[in-house]
C-alpha cells in the first residue's frame, strides 16, 4: 500500500522568484526609487552623505599619530600631505587615552578597575541571562563591596564589615519575626544595619585589620577620573538607586497617606529639577547640611546626589512594572495568606523587576550619559579631562579630536546597552 501514495512525500526545491521581482535593479527600484518624491529624497540623501564623508574622512585620515604637541602635529601633517592641509591630530589621543580612560589612577594598578569592570558582567549575568546558574546571585550580592575594595583599595575588612551590616539586617528579618512580630522585625532589619554601620563597622574593621592585616594599596578619590569615573558614578547610581527606588515605588502606592506624600514629594521634586542643579548642590551645599567640621570628598557627594536623582527615576520605572502586573497576582498572594512584605518579596517584585529590566537599562543609559555633567562642577570625567588636557601647553587648541574620542567611547557603551535592552524587550514580550 505504501508504494501507492498519491501524496508527494518530499518538498520541491524553492524556485527563483520571477525576473521582475528579484535582482539588484528591482531592489533599487523598489527600495530607492519607488516614486518620484522618494527618488528625489534618495538622491538628496546620497548627496548629503557624500558631502559629509568628503568633509570628514580626509580630515580623519590625513592625520598625525605620533607628534608630541599640536604644533608638531601641524608640521607633520603639512610635511606629509602638503602645506595648508587640515588633518586630525590623533597624537593627543595616543598620548592621553590612558588618562581619558582611567583618570589619575596609578598605571601599575589599572588591572583593578579593569577587573572590577569585568566582574560587573559576572555579577549582572544572572539578571541578564536565564541560563546562568542561580548561585551566581550570591556573587552579585557580594559584588558591590568587592568592587569598592578593588577600586578604592585599602583594608579588606572595611567592605567586609560594611557587608556584615546587610547580613545583620538579613538575619534580623529572618529570626526576629518569631520574637517581636513581623512589623517590628522589618523595622529592626532597617535600623540594625544603620546602627551597625555607624557605631560598630569602623571599630570592627579596625580590629580585624589589626588581627589579620589584609590590604591592597589604597587609591584616593582624587585619583579617579576619566571614563572610570563615569562608569563608577553610573553603576553606583543605578545599583544604589534600585533598592531606594523599590521602596519609593512601594511608598508611592502605599495606602498610608504620610508615606505616600513623602514619596511622591521626593520623586516629583527630583524629577522636576535638572540634574545640574543637584550637582551644584553636591558641589557647594551638601557640606552645609552635614554637621560642622565633617566633609567628604566631591566624588562621594556627587555619588550621593546622583543616587538620589536616579532613585526618583527608578521609582517611576518600577511603578510602571508594578502597574503591569495583573491584579490576580496580588489577589492570589492574598489568598495564600502572605502578608504585604512576603507578597511583595516573593510574588510581586520578582515579576515587576523582570518586566522593568529594559526600562532599567535605558534608565542606566540615560544616567550614564548624564555623568558627563560632573565636568561642569570640576570633576575630571572624560569631558572635564578634555579641558584639563587642553590646559597643557602642548595641546592647547585641540578641539575635535578629544570630543570625537569621548563621543565614540560613550556611543560604543550606550549603543551596545540599548541594543541589549531591545533584545531583552523582544525576549520578554509575551504578547503578539
Amino acid at each position, binding site marked *: 500500500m505504501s508504494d501507492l501514495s498519491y501524496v508527494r512525500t518530499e518538498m520541491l526545491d524553492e524556485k527563483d522568484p520571477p525576473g521582475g521581482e528579484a535582482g539588484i535593479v528591482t531592489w533599487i527600484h523598489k527600495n530607492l526609487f519607488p516614486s518620484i518624491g522618494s527618488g528625489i529624497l534618495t538622491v538628496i540623501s546620497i548627496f548629503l552623505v557624500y558631502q559629509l564623508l568628503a568633509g570628514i574622512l580626509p580630515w580623519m585620515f590625513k592625520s598625525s599619530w605620533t607628534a608630541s604637541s599640536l604644533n608638531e602635529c601641524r608640521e607633520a601633517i603639512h610635511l606629509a600631505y602638503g602645506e595648508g592641509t587640515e588633518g586630525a591630530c590623533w597624537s593627543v589621543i595616543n598620548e592621553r587615552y590612558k588618562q581619558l580612560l582611567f583618570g589619575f589612577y596609578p598605571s601599575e594598578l589599572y588591572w583593578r578597575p579593569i577587573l572590577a569592570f569585568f566582574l560587573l558582567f559576572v555579577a549582572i549575568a544572572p539578571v541578564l541571562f536565564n541560563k546562568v546558574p542561580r548561585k551566581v546571585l550570591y556573587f552579585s550580592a557580594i559584588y558591590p563591596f568587592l568592587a569598592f575594595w578593588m577600586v578604592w583599595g585599602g583594608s579588606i575588612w572595611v567592605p567586609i564589615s560594611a557587608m556584615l551590616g546587610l547580613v545583620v539586617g538579613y538575619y534580623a528579618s529572618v529570626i526576629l519575626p518569631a520574637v517581636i*512580630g513581623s512589623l517590628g522585625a522589618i523595622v529592626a532589619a532597617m535600623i540594625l544595619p544603620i546602627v551597625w554601620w555607624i557605631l560598630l563597622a569602623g571599630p570592627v574593621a579596625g580590629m580585624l585589620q589589626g588581627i589579620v592585616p589584609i590590604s591592597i594599596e589604597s587609591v584616593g578619590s582624587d585619583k579617579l577620573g576619566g571614563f572610570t569615573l563615569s562608569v563608577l558614578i553610573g553603576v553606583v547610581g543605578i545599583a544604589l538607586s534600585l533598592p531606594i527606588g523599590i521602596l519609593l515605588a512601594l511608598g508611592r502606592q502605599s495606602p498610608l497617606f504620610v508615606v505616600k506624600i513623602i514619596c511622591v514629594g521626593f520623586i516629583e521634586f527630583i524629577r522636576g529639577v535638572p540634574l545640574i*542643579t543637584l550637582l551644584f548642590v553636591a558641589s557647594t551645599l551638601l557640606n552645609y547640611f552635614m554637621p560642622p567640621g565633617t566633609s567628604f570628598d566631591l566624588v562621594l557627594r556627587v555619588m550621593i546626589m546622583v543616587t538620589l536623582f536616579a532613585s526618583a527615576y527608578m521609582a517611576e520605572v518600577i511603578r510602571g512594572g508594578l502597574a503591569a502586573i495583573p491584579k490576580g497576582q496580588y489577589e492570589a498572594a492574598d489568598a495564600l495568606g502572605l502578608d504585604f512584605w512576603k507578597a511583595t518579596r516573593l510574588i510581586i517584585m520578582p515579576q515587576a523587576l523582570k518586566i522593568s529590566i529594559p526600562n532599567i537599562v535605558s534608565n542606566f543609559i540615560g544616567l550614564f550619559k*548624564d555623568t558627563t555633567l560632573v565636568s561642569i562642577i570640576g570633576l575630571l570625567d572624560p569631558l572635564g579631562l578634555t579641558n584639563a588636557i587642553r590646559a597643557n601647553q602642548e595641546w592647547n587648541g585641540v578641539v575635535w579630536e578629544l570630543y570625537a574620542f569621548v563621543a565614540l567611547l560613550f556611543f560604543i557603551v550606550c549603543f551596545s546597552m540599548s541594543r541589549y535592552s531591545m533584545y531583552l524587550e523582544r525576549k520578554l514580550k509575551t504578547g503578539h
Partner: protein
Amino acid sequence: MAMADQAGNQPAFRLSMLIYDSRYRSLTIQAVALMLFMLAVAWLLSNAASNLAALGKPLGFGFLSQPAGYDINQRLIEYNNQMSHGRAALVGILNTLLVAVLGCITATAIGIIVGVLRLSSNWIISRLMTVYIETVRNVPVLLWIILTNALLIESLPKIASFRGKDPASDLILWDSVAVTNSGTFIPSPVFGGGSGIVIAMFVLSLIAIVFFGRWAKARQAATGAILPTFWIKLAIFIIPALLFFFIMGRPVTLEYPEMARFRFEGGYVIRNSLISLWLALSLYTGAFIAEAVRAGIQAVSQGQSEAAFALGLRPNKTMSLIVLPQALRVIIPPLISQYLNLTKNSSLAIAVGYMDVTGTLGGITLNQTGREMESLMILMACYLSISITVSVFMNWYNESIKMKER
C-alpha cells in the same frame, strides 16, 4: 476611617494595640514615618543653619535687590548691569523659557518627520534616520551642545568677512539677514503711525481663520464636501493684513542690520549660543520623540491603514488623517516627558555661554554674591514650577484627546 467609628465597641485601649491592632497599626507607622522624616529634615536644617551662621551668611534674599554688575547679551526684557540680581534672574528665566519653547517646537517637528521617515519604504532614508536616531541618542547631550556650538563657530562666516569693500560673505534674503558665527542678525520691524490698524486687522484675520475652520468642519460633517481649507486659511491670513498695510501707506518698516565698527547694528540678533543650544536640544530631543512617534505609529493596527487604503485614501492622507491622530494618543505621554527633559537639559546652556537662569542666577550671581543656598533654592523652585506647569498642562491636553470610551 470607617474602622475608627467601631472603636467604641472594643475593649479598652492599650498601648500595644498601636502595633498589634491592624486598625491602629497604619496610623502608628505613619506617625513614626512622619516623625523620622521631620527629625531628618530638622537635623539637616539645623546643620545648615549652624554652618551658615559660622560662615556669617545667615539666610536672606536681600542680595536679589543689589545691582548685578554684569551684562547679559541675549535678553527679552530691558536689562543693564546696574539693575538688580533679581532682574538678572528674571532675564535668565525668560531665556530658559525661550529656548525651551523654541526647542520643543522644533524637536516635535523633527521628531515627527524623522519618526515617519524611519518607517519609510525608501531603504536609504529609513537607514539614514536610524543612524541619526542611534547616533544622537547614544552620545551625551552635553557633548552634543558643545559639538554643535563648535561646529557653528567653525563653519559659519565670521563677522569680519562681511566687512570691507569686497566682503567675502554676503547677507542673505535680499540683504536682510546676516548669518555669522557670533550670531544671526535679522531685521526688526519698526511700527509707525497707523500700524495699530494693520496689527488689529492681523488679529482679526486670525480669529476669522478659527471660525472658518469650524464652519468648514461643520460643513464637511453635514454635506461631505471638502474645501481646500489650507489655501483659504492662508488667504485670510495674508490678504487683509497686506491690503491694509498698503492702504495705510506701509506703516510698518523693517530696520535692517547695518555693518558698524565691529558688528551689525540695528535689527535683532539671535546669538550663536542660543542657536547652538536650540539646535542641539532639538536634534537630541527630536531623536527621542522620533522613537516615540515610531512606536506610536506601529501601535496603530495595520488594519487601520488597510481600511484607509480600501477607502481610496492616498498614503499621505492615510498617515495624516487616520494613523497619526490615533498614534497621537500613544505618543503624547512620552512626549510630555521629552518636553520636560528638554526644559531641564536647557540648563546646560552654561556650556556655550547662553545666559539662562542657571547661567545668571545659578552662575554669575551665585559666584559674585556667594549666596549658594538662596540662589540654588530659587533656581530649583524655578525649574520645579516650570516642570509642574508643563506637566499639568500636558496632562490636561492628554486627557482631552483621550479616546472617549463609552
